[in-house]
């Protein structure tokens, strides 16, 4: 799986660091380092008010930092 978090200025202000830190932890806890290619890009061109842009295998999502766990469960764990 290819997981890309937008780390551009706009998403950074909306909490991309918290999103990245939480995702990193979840990947580690679930030992998915080998199956998830985790990367960052400066601006996905999907800027949305208050939310951080994330791209998973070509599909776009926009998340609040507190939504990371449910996103991870719904989109990654359940589809492995």
């Amino acid at each position, binding site marked *: 799986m290819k997981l890309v978090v937008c780390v551009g*200025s706009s998403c950074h202000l909306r909490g*991309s660091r918290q999103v990245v830190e939480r995702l990193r932890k979840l990947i580690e806890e679930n030992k998915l380092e080998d199956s998830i290619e985790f990367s960052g890009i400066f601006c996905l061109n999907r800027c949305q008010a208050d939310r951080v842009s994330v791209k998973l295998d070509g599909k776009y999502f926009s998340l609040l930092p507190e939504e990371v766990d449910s996103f991870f469960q719904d989109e990654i764990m359940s589809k492995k």
Partner: protein
Amino acid sequence: MRKFDTKIQYLQYRAMTEVSRAAWNNTLQEEILDIPRRIVPGNIPTMRCCVYKERAILAERVKLAMGGDKSNPNVIEVIKIACDECPASGYEVTDSCRGCLAHRCQEVCKKDAITFDSKQKAQIDKTKCIDCGLCAKVCPYNAIQNHTRPCENACSTVKAISMDESMAADIDGDKCIACGACIYQCPFGAIMSKSYLLEAIDIIKSSQNNTKYRVYAIVAPAIASQFKYAKLGQVISGIKALGFHTVVEAALGADMVSASEAKELIEKGILTSSCCPAFVDYVHKNFPKLVDYVSHNLSPMATIAKYIKENDPTAKNIFIGPCTAKKVEFQKPEVAPYIDCVLTFEELQALFDSKDLDIVNMEEDLLDNASYFGRIFARSGGLSDAIVQGVKEIGDADFVAEPVPCNGIAECRRALLMLSRNALKGNLIEGMACEGGCVGGAGILTRGDKNKADVDKHSKIAQEKTITESVSQLP
């Protein structure tokens, strides 16, 4: 709206703007010969002996705006016909000498170069004088003056500038570190750096609105001290309006460098910084035995550029900063894979105006990635503070970073001499070739003490307060 400190900057800017405008329009071939006349119309000279010489010099500026002399590997070039061949006689006694009795000048001279004529006026024997300047310092009448060329004075530590057979300034590329101090100091604007504007425009145009590949602007933290007529967010909007995909802070690269350089310092015990390319070049050319002390980290520019390309392999990175030495650095084999082009703030201003972008009327965009510590790299002392912080964050209680911040190449030289004699009072040399640090670089629009204050102000509003936090934002 004051954009430039001097008329020389303005003339360079005009040449660069006209070249860029024509390049965007694909009309450079047709227009190139008309540009000097466009900048100097009419028949009345305002700068030189005649308008023809003024235009001839502008033609040289146009050539430099297009990349300069391709056969000359140095990025700093002398425009020979613009050099006024300033007198370069060294220390001389002027009419102000009163023929006093104290003879402090003679007493202080270690080379016995000073004698007195029948009227008791001092005379300097040029065959003995070594231009140390002690006599000038002690004369109570300031009667001894130094007639050194401003360019040579600017290069007094590096000593790369001399005179050629026609008395024009000449730069020794083997010694030059491309700091650009001479560019600002020459009152006739006879020294310029080569511009890579055409390459930048081509990269942007060929990206076809960032659809073929994305073009990233990596901006130096000194940007917070420039474009004083507009807000920083408007400058970011302007950069995007030129056709860049986005703008990234080189200061985030500085955070990454701080983290790994702090580790390197603890490992090695003694280190010099590696982020100022002019300083690194100076060490290589003048202190080859100290090269191993230079940090193995890439510069902040190259570090963040590497990250961008590792995550977006077709990306093109254009660095925009205050520095002429970066124009050398980006062509080095270890940096070339990551940085595709380097521009200065002066060149960015020319690009804005070549597209008639009125940035003061633009919305404010965002520039937010780096921590306080990454941003203060732009001014002297910032790197030292950042490495001290980095060591603290690693939490090794047994190791204390003792930085020696060197403000300008003369201070760098003194610290390197001490290091070569194992007498350095400290364990980390912060080497910054320009006085004041990057905010005093050769490619800036506006100079002055306020630059440091502006950088500090911008640093304090950073979200991330530690280097660890800042680095952890990247997957």
